[in-house]
């Protein structure tokens, strides 16, 4: 029993003892700041990465929609080509539909030969003051490929 009393006395002393309290306070402040900083870094970088993924997905899909503007006459002649202005307008229209509601903006559509390149940018505001505001710019490329079981056939 005296053993239990001693343990209790030790516990009381450990709680009532104020030596080192400044050190403890400094530790708690530092630990708290680092924890919040670490969580902020993880959360905001994940949000930026998810925004990048989503933006590149929209850009890729818009480019794919544009690359389907095949010129009918050239297809009948045997070598399918894109109708440039139609590819441009289809990609732009698709991009407009795909980014609506996500806060993204169409930065440009470029049609070169049988290739459509769509660029979409979007800004991400961080929730924690660890990483700065990021502007995500992603490009999606789609190319007209003609073939039956493989390209060129």
């Amino acid at each position, binding site marked *: 029993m005296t053993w239990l009393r*001693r343990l209790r*006395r*030790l516990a009381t*002393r*450990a*709680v009532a*003892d104020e*030596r*080192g309290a400044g050190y*403890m306070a400094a*530790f708690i402040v530092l*630990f708290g700041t680092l*924890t919040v900083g*670490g*969580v902020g870094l*993880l*959360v905001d*970088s*994940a*949000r930026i*990465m*998810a925004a990048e*993924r*989503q933006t590149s*997905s*929209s850009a*890729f*899909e*818009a480019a*794919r*929609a544009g690359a*389907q*503007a*095949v010129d009918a006459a050239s297809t009948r002649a045997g070598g399918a080509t894109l109708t440039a202005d139609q590819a441009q307008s289809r990609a732009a229209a*698709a991009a407009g*539909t*795909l980014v609506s509601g996500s806060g993204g903006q169409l930065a440009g559509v470029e049609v070169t030969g049988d290739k459509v390149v769509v660029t979409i940018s979007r800004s991400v505001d961080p929730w924690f003051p660890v990483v700065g505001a990021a502007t995500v710019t992603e490009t999606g490329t789609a190319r007209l490929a003609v073939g039956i079981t493989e390209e060129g056939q």
Partner: protein
Amino acid sequence: MTGRLGDDRGSSDVAAMMFIVPLAFGAVMLFTFVGRQGAGAEGVVHAAHVAAVAASTERDAGSAQAAATRTAASTLSAAGTACAGGPSVSVAADAWASGGTVTVTVTCTVATGDLGAIDAPARTLTASASAVIDTYRGYET
């Protein structure tokens, strides 16, 4: 023995250790939780995109739903994101015809069973992605 117990030297360190160790452990679990949510959110966005592409190349609404569900599930499991009860996938299209837009929404409740020590809440992640339905393809309505 009495001298040792009555001694004040080092008692603050013992209290500090009793305090610091669980705190550090909790912080590690918190980082794991947040990191897993972030990776899971990215995986769900990616799965939604892949499922939307899969749905956009099908010929009717029923097979689009089946393709999207299959693709989203296999993408998430390949990325290592465990959804409690599996991901739920819904497919909607403004028109099942060429030039229409198909939208796939993937919902995943990230498993947090092993983080019970910090009472991690089960969070549900949702992402949707759209794709334009193939122009040169026949559709049944």
